[in-house]
C-alpha cells in the first residue's frame, strides 16, 4: 500500500517536472531561435535610427516601430486602466445586484474571447465614419477596447480574493462603501492589479490585427496623435514577407526586441507588485 502511494506521489511529481521542463524549454527555445536568426541584424543603429540601407533602399532602423509600439501599447493600456479599474471596483455586491454583476461578467468574458481582428475592423469602421485616417489615436483606442475585458476580469478576480473580514473591519469602524472600497479593498488588491495591467500590456503590444487598420504604418516617428504610427508586430510581418537575407534577419531581431520589452515590463511589474504588497494582509 505504502509502495503504491509512494509511486503515485512520484508519478505526479515527475509529471509536474516534465511539464515545467516543456515550458522552460519552449521559452528558451523561442528566445534562442529568434536570437540565432536575428543576431546578424541586431545593432544599435537598428534600434535607435530610421536609416535606410544604401544598398537595397530598405529601412534598417526600426526606431519608428519601437516608439510606435510603446506609444500604442502604453497609451492603450493606460486608457484601459482608466476604464477597467473603476469598473472592477464598482462591480461589487455593495453597489450592484448579483444578477447585474453576473451579466456584466458574462459580457466581459465574451468580449475577451472575440478575436482582435474584429476589434481592428470595428476600430477601422469608427475611423472611417469619422472621416479619419489610421492614426496613433485610432490604434490606442482600439487597443484600449481590446484590453478592457482582460484587465477588468483580472482586476475583478484579484478583488474577489480580498478577505471579507477586511470589509467587515472597515464597515465596523463606520466607513462608507466608497471609503471601504477605495482605502481598503483597492489597497489590498493593488499588487494583483499590477499583474492584471501587465497581462493586458503583453497582449496589447503583441497584437497585430487590432492595429493593422487603425494605427496604420509610418516610416517616421509619430509627431502627433493624429498621425499614423508603425508598430513592432506589423514591422515583423512586413519584413518576413520581404525577400532577402537582411529583411529576414531584421524580422527576427525585431521579434527579439518585442520579447525583450515584454520581459522588461514583466520584471518591472513583478517588482512593483512586491513593493505594493508590503502592507497587504496575507
Amino acid at each position, binding site marked *: 500500500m505504502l509502495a503504491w502511494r509512494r509511486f503515485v506521489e512520484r508519478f505526479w511529481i515527475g509529471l509536474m517536472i516534465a511539464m515545467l521542463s516543456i515550458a522552460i524549454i519552449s521559452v528558451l527555445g523561442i528566445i534562442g531561435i529568434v536570437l540565432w536568426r536575428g543576431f546578424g541584424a541586431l545593432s544599435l543603429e537598428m534600434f535607435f535610427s530610421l536609416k535606410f540601407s544604401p544598398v537595397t533602399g530598405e529601412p534598417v532602423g526600426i526606431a519608428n516601430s519601437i516608439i510606435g509600439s510603446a506609444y500604442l501599447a502604453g497609451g492603450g493600456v493606460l486608457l484601459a486602466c482608466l476604464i477597467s479599474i473603476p469598473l472592477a471596483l464598482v462591480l461589487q455586491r455593495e453597489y450592484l445586484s448579483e444578477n447585474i454583476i453576473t451579466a456584466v461578467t458574462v459580457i466581459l468574458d465574451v468580449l475577451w474571447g472575440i478575436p482582435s481582428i474584429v476589434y481592428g475592423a470595428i476600430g477601422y469602421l469608427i475611423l472611417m465614419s469619422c472621416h479619419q485616417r489610421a492614426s496613433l489615436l485610432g490604434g490606442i483606442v482600439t487597443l484600449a477596447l481590446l484590453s478592457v475585458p482582460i484587465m477588468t476580469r483580472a482586476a475583478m478576480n484579484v478583488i474577489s480574493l480580498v*478577505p*471579507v*473580514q*477586511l*470589509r*467587515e*473591519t*472597515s*464597515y*465596523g*469602524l*463606520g*466607513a*462608507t462603501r466608497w*471609503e471601504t472600497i477605495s*482605502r*481598503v479593498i483597492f*489597497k*489590498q488588491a493593488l499588487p494583483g492589479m499590477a499583474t492584471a495591467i501587465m497581462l493586458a500590456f503583453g497582449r496589447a503590444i503583441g497584437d497585430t490585427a487590432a492595429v493593422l487598420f487603425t494605427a496604420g504604418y509610418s516610416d517616421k516617428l509619430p509627431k502627433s496623435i493624429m498621425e499614423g504610427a508603425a508598430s513592432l508586430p506589423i514591422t515583423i510581418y512586413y519584413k518576413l514577407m520581404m525577400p532577402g537575407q537582411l529583411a529576414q534577419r531584421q524580422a527576427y531581431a525585431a521579434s527579439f526586441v518585442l520579447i525583450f520589452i515584454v520581459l522588461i515590463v514583466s520584471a518591472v511589474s513583478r517588482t512593483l507588485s512586491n513593493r505594493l504588497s*508590503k*502592507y*497587504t*494582509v*496575507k
Partner: protein
Amino acid sequence: MSHLSIKDLHVYYEGVETLKGIDLEIPDKSIVAIIGPSGCGKTTLLRSINRLLELSNDVKVTGSVEIDGENIYDPKADLISLRKKMGFLSQRPFPLPCSIFDNVAYGPKIHRMDADAINAVALSLEPASKVSKNRKEALANLVEICLVKAGLWDEVKERLGSPASRLSIGQQQRLSLARALAVGAEMILGDEPTSALDPISTKQIEEQFKALSSQYSIVMVTHILRQARRLADYVVFMYLGELIEHGPAEKIFNSPEKEMTRRYIKGDMS
C-alpha cells in the same frame, strides 16, 4: 456612554430562523458575556448589534436594536455614526492593509475628525492626555493613547510605520482594540476575541477589558466558561437561537434558575 437594548430580535438565514426573538437590556459599564453551545447564535446576535450581518447573503432581520433609544434597523438610522459607537473585535483579527499607525488613525481619518474632536476622544480615554490644536499632532497623541490603552504601545512604539500585517495575531487583536477606541467607540463587541490567542495575549486582552469596563460597555462572546467567570459582570446564556437565561454573573454561575443553564455551567452540555 450609550445604552443598548435589544427587542424581539429575529434573524433568518435563507429563511431559517436562527435567532428566535431575543429581548435583552445590556447593562451599562460592565462586561457582558454571551455563552452557549456552538451554533446557538452567539455570533449572529453580536453581528446583528452593529448590522455587520447584512454583508452576508440572504439574511433577514426583524425587531429592533436600540442604541440610546435609536433603532439601528430603522431605515432612516444613521448607520455610520451608530457603527462608530461600537468597536468590533472579530474572532480572528484582521489588520487593514496599511501601517500600524494608519490602522489606528483609520477611523479618525474617515470620519474627518478635526483636532478638537480628536482631542475629545483622547481626553475621554485618558483625562491626563496631551492635547494639540494641530490636527496631525492631536492624531499622533490619540494613536499613542489608544495603543497604550490596548496594551500594545511598548511593543510597537519604535515601528509605527511598519505594516500591521507583520504583527503577531495577539498583537493584531490588541491593535483591533486600539483601532476601535480611536473612533471614540462607547461600546466594545468581541466575538471570542481571545480564541486565536495564547494564554499570555489572552491575559493581556482580558486585563484591557477589565480596565476599560469602568468606562465602556463590553459585550463578548466566549466559549470559555472560566473566562466568563473571570471577567463577566453579567451573563447571557443562549441555546438554539433562544435566550434561555440572563442575569448577574454570580447568580447565573451559582444559582441559575433554569435546569438547562445549570447543566451547561456544570459542563454536562457542550
